[in-house]
Each structure stands twice: as structure tokens, then as C-alpha cells.
């Protein structure tokens, strides 16, 4: 029974990956919206774009890690 609950928990933790996807899409979409208004300023902001994506993605990776721990370590 406990193992089954762990599998349900792993599935719930996978929701976090979807949430991170929303975050990454938000960052990239807003960057594109800004870049199309002022393309000449876009090239200088790619580093900021990647930093933003990295921060948004890290939390999704945390939830993936929780899912893995529930699947294989608990």
C-alpha cells in the first residue's frame, strides 16, 4: 500500500514539471514580445533571458527530483 501511495505522490510531483513549463514559456514569450518591439536591443538581453529561464526551470527540476526519490528511493 505504501509503495502505491508513493507512486501517486510521484505523479502529483510531476505536476510541478508542468508548472515550470508555464514559467519558462512566460519568460521566453515576454522576451519575444519585447524583442519584436525593439529588435536592436534584443541581442544584449539574451544572457538575461537564459538566466531567467534557468531560474524558472530549476524549480521544475526540484519537483522532478522529488518524483524520482518517491519512485526509486522511498
Amino acid at each position, binding site marked *: 500500500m505504501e509503495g502505491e501511495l508513493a507512486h501517486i505522490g510521484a505523479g502529483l510531483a510531476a505536476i510541478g514539471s508542468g508548472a515550470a513549463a508555464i514559467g519558462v514559456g512566460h519568460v521566453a514569450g515576454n522576451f519575444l514580445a519585447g524583442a519584436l518591439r525593439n529588435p536592436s536591443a534584443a541581442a544584449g538581453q539574451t*544572457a538575461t533571458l*537564459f*538566466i531567467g*529561464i*534557468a531560474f524558472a*526551470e*530549476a524549480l521544475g*527540476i*526540484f519537483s*522532478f*527530483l522529488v518524483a*524520482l526519490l518517491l*519512485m*526509486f528511493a522511498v
Partner: protein
Amino acid sequence: MADPVDGGGLSFKPLDQFEVKRLFGEGPIEWYTITNVTMWMAIAVACIVLLLVIGTSKRAVVPNRTQSVAETLYGFVYTMVEDVTGKDGIKYFPYIFTLFIFILFSNFLGLLPMSFTTTSHIAVTAILAFAVFFTVTIIGFVKNGAAFLGLFWVSSAPLALRPILAVIEVISYFVRPVSHSIRLAGNLMAGHAVLKVFAGFAQVGLIIAPVAILGVVAIYALEVLVSAIQAYVFTILTCVYLKDALHPSH
């Protein structure tokens, strides 16, 4: 490790590829044991030496292919350090370039079939991230003295908010090495596990197998991109942390 799924002979073991094994003989793994991790790190270092030392040994004015790859990588990281940290960060360029090229080569070598991805282990990336964390903290205190603590005191915020912000800033400062290392290891581990799961779908049957193999190809292409981007992200975050240490005022 969970048991493989016994549904019509279908077996998923996506995490077996990350197992650390002894290369020679039997017995427990000590810190000095030569394992497959040691071997693939050594291969990464050998490839870097081949590219950078042999590639630039002629120092031709018109570079050949190897030399221009080496020069492009060097120039790419040099511009990045200069853009993010400014002129006074340039003297830490060798360290940042070493980090970048080691992670890049480990990621790419891990993509070869039957190879081992050293950067998918948190033990490896945590050492890299904590090295960055301690280096940056020591540089911050040596360069600025007690003024480095100004990093936690947000002087642009209203006075009443500053203690609360200071607590948040301190927590986020100490979480940095954790997220720095887990981001790299997690991305690589997730990607390689997904590759293995798709490869497992190829066992299902003649109709599913071609789709699964196409999926493996597509995800492999994505993984090539992720490998390069994660090396870039690790390096640029190092630059950002270094900039915070050199100029701690908000």
C-alpha cells in the same frame, strides 16, 4: 531500485545507466577507486587538452578548423565574462573558462551511446557548485571586507522592509550552490532517463517501434541543445555570482 514493469516482457530501467561501477576487479567503491566516472572525466580532460593545446599549437594567422573551434570557444566565454562581470572580473576568466569547457565536454561525451554522463551525478556538480560558492564568498570578503554584507542589506528598499528582505537574501544566498548543482545534474539526468524510456517503448511491437525510434532521435537532438545550454547557464550564473562578489551594493 524498483522492479521492472512486467507487462508483456516490457522492462524499463531508465536509471541503470547512472550506476557507478569499478573498472578493475571486485569489491567496495572507496574514494580512490578507479570507476567509470573517473574514466569519463579523464577522457573529457584529454579531449579538452587535445582541442586547446594541439589545436592552438601552430598559432596560424589563418586558423585551421581545430584552431578556429578553440578560438571561438575562448572568445565566447571571454565576451561573456567581460559583459557580465565587467573589466575587473577578467582576471577570474581562466577559472570560468575551465568550468565551462569541462562541463561542456562532459555533457557532450555523455551523449555518446554506451558512455557515462559524469555531470548527471549530483556528487560531481555539487563539488563544482560549492567550489564556485566558496571562491565567490572568499573573493567578496577579501575585496570588500565587511562591505560585502551590503549584498544582504537592500538599501533601495523602504527601511521597514529591509530586515525582512535581509532574511530572504541570506536564505537565497545559501540556496545558490544547491540550485546551481541540482539544475545541471537534474537536467542531464532527466534527459537521459527520457531517452531510455523511449528506447524501452521500442520493445512494444512493430507498429510502435518506428515511432519510438523517431522519438529517440528527436529527444537526442533536444539533448544536444540542452547539454550546450546547461553548460552556458552554469557558467553565466558563476559570472553573475562573481559580479555580486565584486560589486555587492544593490
